[in-house]
């Protein structure tokens, strides 16, 4: 039954990776920014929720406030940093370096306030476990929550970008910012909305992961980079593709535990990335779309 347990663990982590991938891809495909600081927002979400909960705020409001603050921080990065850089005609390289600087600031501010020790949520219910099939598969409450959140938000994002006004506007701006500007879709404002939505999503991911594994200030980069692998391998602009590749990556990483120690999981993700670059450079979506 180890196999099915690993499969389930892989799917749960895959949901998280998938959500990080979707939210990052939203920024990357709309504003064209390689937003490394996203990893910082991910970490920030968990720490904000932890602070609120330990100061006696009830769980659900604490999570909502943490997500809202993450969204605000994301919007602030867009308006205060990326927009200013765009005003100065900065090259993508300059924006990337600035984003890396933002990541360093967020991570190290957290490290200075909370130290680098692992922190656990003092909740109780996040340690509770239910057993399925005569206790052969064990699922913790945060894991179940993650599975539901992953499925709901993935479908939600697809519906949002297809059917709502703002979603259509985001796709229009992503497709042609110049034309969108002429038709008064205001790309700058759209980018800010995108950053806020994506940052909120990644903040939630940070909270869900930290419920299960605790908090550390520098743990955001690895999931973000695995998620970017999923974005490129899934095909840029394909929400479902990115989510699917994230699930596959994470399941493979977990199944690999059967044959090798867990420290090498990172090598698997990038090994798969290299295979994709060599054989399917435009990603998984090129298989089923005829663009």
């Amino acid at each position: 039954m180890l196999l099915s347990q690993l499969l389930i663990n892989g799917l749960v982590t895959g949901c998280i990776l998938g959500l990080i991938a979707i939210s990052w891809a939203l920024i990357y495909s709309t504003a064209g920014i390689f937003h490394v600081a996203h990893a910082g927002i991910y970490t920030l979400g968990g720490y904000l929720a932890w602070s609120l909960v330990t100061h006696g705020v009830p769980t659900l409001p604490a999570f909502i406030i943490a997500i809202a603050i993450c969204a605000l921080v994301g919007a602030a990065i867009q308006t205060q940093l990326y927009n200013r850089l765009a005003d100065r005609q900065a090259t993508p390289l300059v924006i990337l370096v600035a984003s890396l600087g933002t990541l360093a600031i967020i991570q190290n501010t957290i490290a200075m306030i909370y130290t680098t020790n692992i922190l656990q949520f003092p909740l109780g219910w996040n340690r509770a476990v239910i057993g399925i099939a005569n206790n052969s598969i064990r699922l913790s409450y945060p894991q179940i929550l993650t599975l539901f959140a992953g499925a709901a938000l993935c479908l939600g994002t697809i519906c949002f970008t297809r059917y709502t006004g703002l979603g259509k506007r985001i796709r229009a701006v992503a497709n042609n910012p110049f034309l969108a500007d002429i038709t008064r879709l205001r790309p700058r404002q759209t980018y800010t909305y995108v950053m806020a939505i994506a940052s909120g999503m990644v903040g939630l991911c940070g909270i869900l992961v930290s419920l299960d594994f605790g908090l550390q200030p520098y743990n955001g980069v690895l999931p973000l980079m695995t998620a970017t692998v999923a974005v490129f391998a899934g095909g840029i602009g394909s929400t479902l593709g990115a989510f699917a590749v994230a699930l596959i990556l994470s399941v493979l990483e977990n199944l690999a535990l059967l044959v090798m120690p867990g420290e090498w999981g990172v090598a698997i993700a990038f090994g798969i990335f290299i295979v994709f670059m060599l054989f399917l450079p435009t990603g998984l979506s090129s298989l089923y779309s005829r663009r």
Partner: protein
Amino acid sequence: MDFLFSYLVLALIYVLVGLSTNLLVGIVGIFSISQAAVFGVGAYIFANLTMAATSMPFILALAIAGGACVLLNIVVSLPSLRVSGDYFVVTSFGIQLVASAVFVNWVSGTGGANGLPGIPAPEFFGFALDTPPRYVVVAGLATGLGCLAFWLMMRSPFGRLLRAIREDEIAIAAVGKQVLGAKVAAAALAGGFGGVAGGIFAAFMSFIDPYSFDLDASILLLSMVVIGGTRTLAGSIVGPFVMLALPQILTMIDIPSTMAAPARQFAYGVLLIVFMLYRPQGLVGERL
């Protein structure tokens, strides 16, 4: 006095790694965050070669470390540069994270998190270069040669080709130049600089651990080059000297020792943003 000399040696070594970062990020315009990993691979290969039962001579071990990093950079840059710049960003992060995992977990080859102690200092004709004032000669010579090579390369047709690629890749491809070949060659050269610098670093420190070659180290290297100034030789020389002096200033501010490392990284982050916003050309560089 020794303190001043070890600052000098370290700054000189970082100038050499800085040249490799500058070559990729500044001159060709491909973002690389894996320079510390390459630096580390060079250091670990050098350490293993010189600490083996039949100890290898300093120069030969240095050459092998450099050569291995050239190969490493060719192998990893070839697939990603074929596709697009952003794929190289992911690859570059990937190399850094995989290399860090290898440095920490491959205990028999790297000593794991405890590091590798007892790397011998170089000896020439029975004269051991084991103190910082003596080692300045080695570091100065290597970095001087590196700077000369960089300067000559920048004036050569190859250097002009690299800078032209950065300006307009498609136009260069249209006039029949091998864009991919030139980029991979630049990556290979950057690997060589990084690997040799790693070997010199290992011999100087006589002890290496994974924390000298992690993502933070890569960010530090990038800050050195970006703040010193990209695309010029002077920038790569100024950057390391300024950025290595900065922690000394931070020690004057009274902060608890557990906060020292995050505070330093925080300062690098602030500097990166401020420079990108108000002076993207760095102290003495050209516009990035």
